[in-house]
C-alpha cells in the first residue's frame, strides 16, 4: 500500500558513490572502493529498489510508472555491465518503465572500453553523460581527472559505435589557469564531436576539497579574472547558439528535442525517488534523503520492511509547506530559460503570482533581470541569467 497519492509518473535517481580516484575539486558523496565493496553495494541497491517499489505505487497501479532514470555518482561507469544490467532488470521487475523513458548514465572516459559500452547499451541505458570537463590535458591533470582529452574523444566515438544516439558532454569553465583560448578550444572540440547535449558548468571551489586548500596555499594557477571569466561565459552562449545548441537551462545546452528530461524534472516539480547512498527524493509534499553513511545505509536497507519502507530510509525529512512550494516553483523554475508560468502558479496555489511576489516582480522587471513573455511566463533575461542566484534569493518568502 502506498501512503500517498501521486499525480503521474516518477523519476528515479540512482546513486553510485564510487570512483577510481577522487577528483581534486569534488565534494560529492563519493570515494574509491574495492570490487567487493562495489558488488555488495549493487546488492544493497537492488534490494532497496525492490523494497521501495511499494513506496511510490498508487493503489490504482500494479507498479509505479517511471518516465526517467538517471544513474549518477561517483562514477557509475565503474559498474560492470553485468551489475548495470542487474540494476536495470531489478527496476523493470518492480516498476513500469515507460517505453520512451529517458535512461541516462554518467560515465568517466577513464573507466570504459567499447565492450563495456556495448554492455551498458544492452542493459538498457539510452543516454550517456560523459564527464569530459576539458579537452586540455594540463587542465585535466590539474583537476585530478583520470583520463586525457584523447581518451575522452575515443570514448565518445566508442559510444557512438555502441549505438548511443543521445550523448551529453560535461564541461567545466572558470578553472584555475584557464583563459579564453583554452576554453574555446575545449568548446570547439566538444562541438566538433557533435553531441546532442552540452553541460557547461562553472567550477565552484568548495570548502574542504583539496582544491580549496591548494588555492589558499597559492599552489594553483590564478583563477580567471572577472573580465576573462565573463569573456568565456559570453563566448559559450554565442558559440553554442551558433552551433545549434539552445540554452534551455542556466548551464545546459541541447539540440532541439534533446533537453535532459530528468534534469528538467528537478526544476519543474516532477516527483523523484532517490535510491542508493545519500540520494535525495521529492515525493508528494516531502523532501528527504537516504542515509549518507555506508553502515547506516546498509542497516537501513536490511531493516526495511517491504510494507513500511518509509521509516528506515527517509532521513532529513522535510514537509514542504505551501510557502516552500511557492519558493521552489520560482527559484527552481527560473533556472529554465522559458521561466515559470503565471497561470501554472495560480493553478497550483490558488493565488496569483502577482499577489505573492508583486513587489519583487515589479522591482526585477525594472532592473531588467526578469521579463514577462507574451504567454504570461516570467523568465530571467540574459543579464538575469548571469546573476541568477542574486535574483532567485529574492523569491524566498
Amino acid at each position: 500500500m502506498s501512503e500517498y497519492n501521486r499525480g503521474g509518473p516518477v523519476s528515479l535517481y540512482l546513486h553510485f558513490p564510487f570512483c577510481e580516484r577522487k577528483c581534486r575539486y569534488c565534494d560529492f558523496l563519493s570515494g574509491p572502493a574495492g570490487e567487493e565493496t562495489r558488488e555488495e553495494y549493487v546488492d544493497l541497491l537492488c534490494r532497496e529498489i525492490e523494497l521501495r517499489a511499494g513506496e511510490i505505487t498508487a493503489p490504482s497501479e500494479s507498479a509505479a510508472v517511471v518516465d526517467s532514470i538517471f544513474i549518477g555518482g561517483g562514477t557509475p561507469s565503474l559498474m560492470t555491465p553485468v551489475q548495470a544490467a542487474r540494476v536495470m532488470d531489478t527496476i523493470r521487475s518492480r516498476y513500469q518503465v515507460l517505453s520512451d523513458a529517458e535512461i541516462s548514465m554518467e560515465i568517466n572516459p577513464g573507466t570504459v572500453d567499447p565492450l563495456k559500452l556495448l554492455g551498458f547499451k544492452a542493459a538498457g541505458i539510452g543516454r550517456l553523460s560523459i564527464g569530459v570537463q576539458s579537452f586540455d590535458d594540463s587542465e585535466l591533470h590539474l583537476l585530478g581527472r583520470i583520463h586525457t582529452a584523447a581518451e575522452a574523444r575515443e570514448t565518445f566515438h566508442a559510444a557512438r559505435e555502441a549505438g548511443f544516439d543521445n550523448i551529453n558532454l560535461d564541461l567545466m569553465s572558470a578553472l584555475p589557469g584557464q583563459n579564453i583560448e583554452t576554453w574555446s578550444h575545449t568548446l570547439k572540440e566538444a562541438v566538433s564531436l557533435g553531441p546532442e547535449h552540452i553541460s557547461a558548468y562553472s567550477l565552484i571551489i568548495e570548502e574542504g576539497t583539496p582544491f580549496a586548500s591548494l588555492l589558499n596555499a597559492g599552489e594553483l594557477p590564478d583563477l580567471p579574472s572577472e573580465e576573462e571569466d565573463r569573456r568565456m561565459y559570453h563566448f559559450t552562449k554565442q558559440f553554442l547558439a551558433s552551433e545549434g545548441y539552445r540554452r534551455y537551462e542556466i548551464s545546459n545546452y541541447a539540440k532541439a528535442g534533446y533537453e535532459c528530461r530528468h534534469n528538467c524534472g528537478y526544476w519543474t516539480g516532477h516527483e523523484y525517488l532517490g535510491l542508493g547512498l545519500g540520494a535525495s527524493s521529492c515525493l508528494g509534499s516531502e523532501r528527504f534523503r537516504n542515509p549518507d553513511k555506508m553502515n547506516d545505509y546498509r542497516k537501513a536497507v536490511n531493516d526495511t520492511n517491504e510494507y513500511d519502507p518509509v521509516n528506515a530510509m527517509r532521513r532529513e525529512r522535510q514537509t514542504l509547506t505551501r510557502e516552500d512550494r511557492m519558493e521552489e516553483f520560482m527559484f527552481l523554475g527560473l533556472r529554465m530559460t522559458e521561466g515559470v508560468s503565471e497561470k501554472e502558479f495560480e493553478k497550483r496555489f490558488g493565488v496569483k503570482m502577482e499577489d505573492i511576489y508583486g513587489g519583487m516582480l515589479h522591482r526585477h522587471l525594472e532592473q531588467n533581470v526578469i521579463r514577462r513573455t507574451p504567454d504570461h511566463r516570467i523568465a530571467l533575461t540574459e543579464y538575469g541569467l548571469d546573476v541568477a542566484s542574486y535574483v532567485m534569493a529574492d523569491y524566498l518568502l
Partner: protein
Amino acid sequence: MASNHYDNIRERTRNFCIVAHIDHGKSTLADRMIERTGLLTSREMQDQVLDNMELERERGITIKSQAVRLVYKAKDGVEYIFNLIDTPGHVDFNYEVSRSLAACDGAILVVDATQGIQAQTLANVYLALEHDLDVFPVINKIDLPSAMPEEVRHEIEDVIGIEAEDAPLISAKQGIGIEDVLEAVVEKIPAPEGDAEEPLKALIFDSLYDSYRGVIVFCRIRDGVIKKGMQVRMMATGAVVEVVEVGYFGPGQFIPCDELAAGQVGYFTASIKNIKDARVGDTVTEHTRPCAEPLPGYKKAQPMVFCGLYPADSAKYPDLRDALEKLQLNDASLFFEPETSLALGFGFRCGFLGLLHMEVILERLEREYDLDLISTAPGVVYKVFKTDGTMIELTNPSNLPDPAKIEHMEEPIVSAEIMVTTEFIGPIMQLCQERRGRYLDTEYIEATRAVLKYELPLNEIIYDFFDALKSRSRGYASFDYDLKGYETSELVKMDILVNKEPVDALSFIVHAAGAYDRGRKMCEKLKEEIPRQLFDVPIQAAVGGRIIARETVRQLRKDVLAKCYGGDISRKKKLLEKQKEGKKRMQIVGNVEIPKEAFMNVLKLDAGN
C-alpha cells in the same frame, strides 16, 4: 534608641571603593574580599559577583556601580561592617565613578605589579583625592613572573605621592594577601562621620528601576536615620514620598533591615515610579524635620556623543522607543529624542557619555530587547553661531543651517593624558597630530615612561582613537581625558551620495583641512562595504555641493550557482537562504542595498593601522 548604639555601629563601619586602571584586578579583588569575609562560599561565588550585567561579565568591565556589605571580624576581635562600592573603570563612566566616590570615605588603589601606573590609575586617584578620600595602595598580580612590586611601590610614591611603603602585596587571583587588605581597610580607612540625632541628610548616589518596587534609591546617610514609614523629601525635586522599605546590599540581592543610620550605605524604596523623582546627587531629608542645607550635589552627566538609532525593520519603531525608555530608567545619562531620516525612516537621536557607553547601549538593545538596529555616524555637540546672533547646539549634522547663515562654529575640546613607554612616543605624537591635537607637555614618570599631554577635538577621538592608540603602541598606551571646553573651528558638513542621492544618515561634520582625506577614505571604505548591485553605483563625497571624492561599485557581473546534484534541492536552497540572510542585513536606500554594518563601519578608518 541610644545615640551610643548608633555611634558604636558607625565606629565599626568602613565605606570604601576600589579604584584601578582597567584590567588591574579590581573586580577580582572585590570577589576575594566577599569570599574571605564568608558571605559566600567559593562554590557559590560566580566570578566577579559585582558585575551582574551579562555584558559586564563578558567584557570584563564594570558599567553600573554596585555595592555590597561585608562583615569582617578583624584581628582586634571587633566585627566591622564594610560597605564596598564597586566603580566603573572606563573613562566614559567617570561620572558614575565620581558619584560612587561621594558615598565613600576611602579608597583602595589597585596597581598591577607588572604594568605599574596607567592613565586611568592616575585619573581615578585624582578623582578620589578630589572627593577627600583616604587612599591606600595595594600591589596586585605579584604571582606573575613579570611582577616588579618594588619598582611599582616607588612609582606610586613618586608619581602619585602617596605612601606605599607598607602597601599589601597581593594576588587577587590566587587569593594571596587578601587578609592584609582587609586589615588595612580597618586601619587606613576612617570611620564615617555623622550624627544620628540630627535631621536626616542622605545622598542619592545611584538608583535602579525595579518593575515591582519602583525606583530603588541607593543612598549614603550623612546624618540622621531613615526608616520604614518615614515621609521623606527629595530636596532638589521637592518630591515627597513615604519610605516602604530600607535595607542594605547583599551580594546580588537587597536585604531589608529596620533602619539605616548616619554613616551607613544602603537603599530605600518608596513606590517611586519615575526615576527622575530620585535624581542621583539629590539630598534626601525627613519631610517634617528637614535638614538645613542639602549636600553639595554633583553636576548631571552631559551626553558627549550623539548618533541616530533606527530599527532595521521600521515596524519596530515603538519597540525601540519602549526599550530606550526602559534603559533610561537605570541610566539617566542616556538621552534620546525622535528624529526622521530620509534614508532610514523613523528613529531616535541618542546621546551617550562616550563611544563605549554607546556600544554598550547598542549591544543591550540588540541582545536584551532583540532589536535589529542601524546606527549612524557618532558625532559630538557643535555650537553653531548664526549671523542673527543666535546659537544652536547641533547634535545631528542634517540640521546644520544654511552655511550662509552661519557666523562661526565651535567644537568641544578635551584635555588628554596619554601614558606611554618612551619607544612609542613618536608614533603616538604622530597620531595626535593627525587628529588635530595640540601638544602641551611631556612628563617623564621614569626613564622609560612618559605622560603626553594634548588637547584634542573630541570629534577626533570618539570613533577609533582608542583602537589606533593601542595598535600604534602595541597595546602599551593608556589614555584618559576630560572635557575642557569649546573652541572656534573651521568645520564643514560632508555629504555622502550613493547613486547620486545624498544619504542623510552618512552626513557628518568634519574639519575643513581634513575634509578631502576623510571624504576619500569614506568613499573607499563604502566601496568595500557596499556589495555589487545590478548596476554601477557611484559613491561620492561632497562638501557644500562640490564633489571632492568618488568611487564606483561596479555592477554585479556573475552570480550563478553551479550544478545542482542529483536533485539535492535542500542544499541549493540553503545557499539561497544564506544569500537572502545577507540581503536582510541590507537597508535599501534609494535603489541601493547598503549593509547595515556599513553605517558604523565606514567610520573606522584608522583600524587597519
